[in-house]
């Protein structure tokens, strides 16, 4: 199945996302902030990146911007996991190059449906 990078500073959220995706047969790597995610993305080709917006060290939006600047990640789907219901945050994420978003709270079924949707 797909190689997915899950980025969230919350261990429980990341755990839930990773567990759910692994259960669906995906290979999941985890990073706790944008900076670590970038390091991992450089060393490996992910098919999908799921990232929280608010994180210490490097937030999700800055991370998307950096990823999109990398040739290998120009067209890779990146979904923001966000509790922000504010449209500005979504727009900021979009402007940085995010593919779309998944609004927290989401349950495992919603997550899988969205991932399936993105990966086709």
């Amino acid at each position, binding site marked *: 199945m797909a190689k997915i990078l899950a980025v969230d500073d919350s261990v*429980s959220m990341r755990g839930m996302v990773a567990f759910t995706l692994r259960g669906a047969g995906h290979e999941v790597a985890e990073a706790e902030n944008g900076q670590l995610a970038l390091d991992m993305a450089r060393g490996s080709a992910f098919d999908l990146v799921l990232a929280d917006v608010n994180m210490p060290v490097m937030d999700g939006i800055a991370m998307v911007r950096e990823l999109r600047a990398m040739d290998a990640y120009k067209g890779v789907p990146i979904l923001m996991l966000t509790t922000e219901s504010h449209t500005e945050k979504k727009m900021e994420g979009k402007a940085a190059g995010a593919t779309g978003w998944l609004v927290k709270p989401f349950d495992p079924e919603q997550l899988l449906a969205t991932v399936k949707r993105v990966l086709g």
Partner: protein
Amino acid sequence: MATVDLTQFHKTFFEESLEGLDAMEAALLALDSGSTDHELVHTIFRAAHSIKGGAATFGFADVAAFTHVAESLLEEVRSERRGVDAELIDLLLRSVDCLRAMLARSSSGQPAADADSEALRGELLRLASGEAVAAPAAAAPGVASATGWAIRFVALPHLLQTGNDPLRLFRELEQLGRLEVRRAFVLDSAPARLAELDPSQCHLGWELRLHGAVARGDVDAVFDWLDGDCELVIESLPGETSATAADPVAMAAPATAPVPAAAPPPACETATVSAASGEGSSIRVDIDKVDALINMMGELVITQSMLSDIGENFRPSQLERLREGLLQLERTTRELQESVMRIRMLPIGSVFNRFPRLVRDLERKLGKQVRLELHGEHTELDKTVLEKIGDPLVHLVRNAIDHGLELPAQRKAAGKPETGTLRLNAYHEGGNIVVQISDDGAGLNRAAIMAKAQQRGLLGAGEEPSDAEVAELIFQPGFSTAAQATDLSGRGVGMDVVRRNVRDLGGSVGVKSEVGKGSVFTIALPLTLAIIDGLVTAVGEERYIVPLTSIVESLRLGAEAVRRIAGGGEVFHFRGEYLPLMRLHRAFGCADAVTEIERGIVVVIEDAGRRVGLLVDDLLGQQQAVIKSLEKHYRRVQGVSGATILSDGSVALIVDVGGVVRLGLRAKAA
């Protein structure tokens, strides 16, 4: 698709939420003391934000609702629409407390919200401006279905760089109904020569037909992430009915926003109970510690293979190598043991961190000025000790501020700075961790303590105890020094409880004080509860282990040194005092033990300044003992704190020094 059991993440969620609240509290306190670091606001916001997200995801709707309001308020601060003042900090600090309580209730399966939390939420709501409570996106428009849709979809050049591949969109549309591509076209923006194309730019457009009874909302949902990335027109097919007629879509709100935190099934909460009470607690381990373990395992494997090499065809000439290998095995095993024990060790800083808040609250309540100094936050303690040392420390800190430190005016009159100093210090000393709580207050009030002790019958009328003995009095059960019990110290928890709690951890607590200069409370704790250094003793056929740290001396006594006292007890003379003698074989009912004093050995043990002699048959040597709970495997036995397995495979019981000393003193008193 198998459903994912979310309860398995609850414990992590609670743990990290509590950590987040600690960080939030520390940042609030920093703001309160005048820091203008904007990163503090971010930290606070992030903590609230994460808790909200997690709470909603894992089905703790009350916690999510509460945090949502707090977060809205914080968002105003973060975006500098609201300033930070003492009132706001107070409110947020109370919110931190409230959330801790809510999380505690949630983790034990109770409803998180109560009257207090609702009242506080109301306060937060009133302070936050109205827009903050805005609900998530509205429901999907155009619920009515048409029998088909005409879609004109033209990519903007950057479409592909958002990861939104039209292939994916078309696949989604295919799921809704029969998709017909009427026309695919290359846009004028495309370069004439292939060499000039930037492959990441998209220059394609499509005219599509989607046949079937598809809701407009479902079509919109396919394109919901593409606002600003394409030109899109969706029209109902001619002659077919639709609720929403032709409208060039700029795609405003996402058509199907994920459902907001619907009330979780109650099953979640009951599951939490079992998760919280059933499983053991978890521990986060520094990766360095794990690496150290893995290194050690590597060495162990090498040694093992070397030894098995020797073992396979052993020749006497290899004796030296065998010895070497065994020595190496011993060394590695010891290191491995230390590393494993270190996994349970956590820095005391996590406990110290609660004190800035406590001190702040007490200052306000009591009208005192206190400067808090924390030292040795990195000193590591066994996780179990760490969890249980918090309450005694809180009590000692309260006590120091309440009774030790004077009011500013009094301090000034005594020629001291108006602000008192309270110092918490943690450090290693020998095989112990020492935690000191010192203040530069008034010191113990000898006269008041003696008066109280006499009143309580703890002290005879004519007695003139030494200062050390007076200090010991405050640890006596039922003793309370405050002339008038304040609501801080007078909660029925006295120093005796502090001492008992510390003793339960295998530690001791004492105090030194100087009038007018202050007091120092010293808690000594064992490094770990899982292993003790013990003296193996023989009593008949049984083996008992006496913790080495509690042993004062081992000696042989003549029969004449022991005196029988009224009530059947025995005492012996040791360094100027009479100590009760306990015959272990009698206390534990061992057969075939030495009964003549002069043939056995007396081990003098001490617990919190009180000593007792134990009569055993013989001393067999020192050994580190890994403590196994007797309660878990058998049942609680008085005078025994646990069991261990000796190198020959037999079981030895570990003497509970505190319990045995109490037993001995009771016998003496009887």
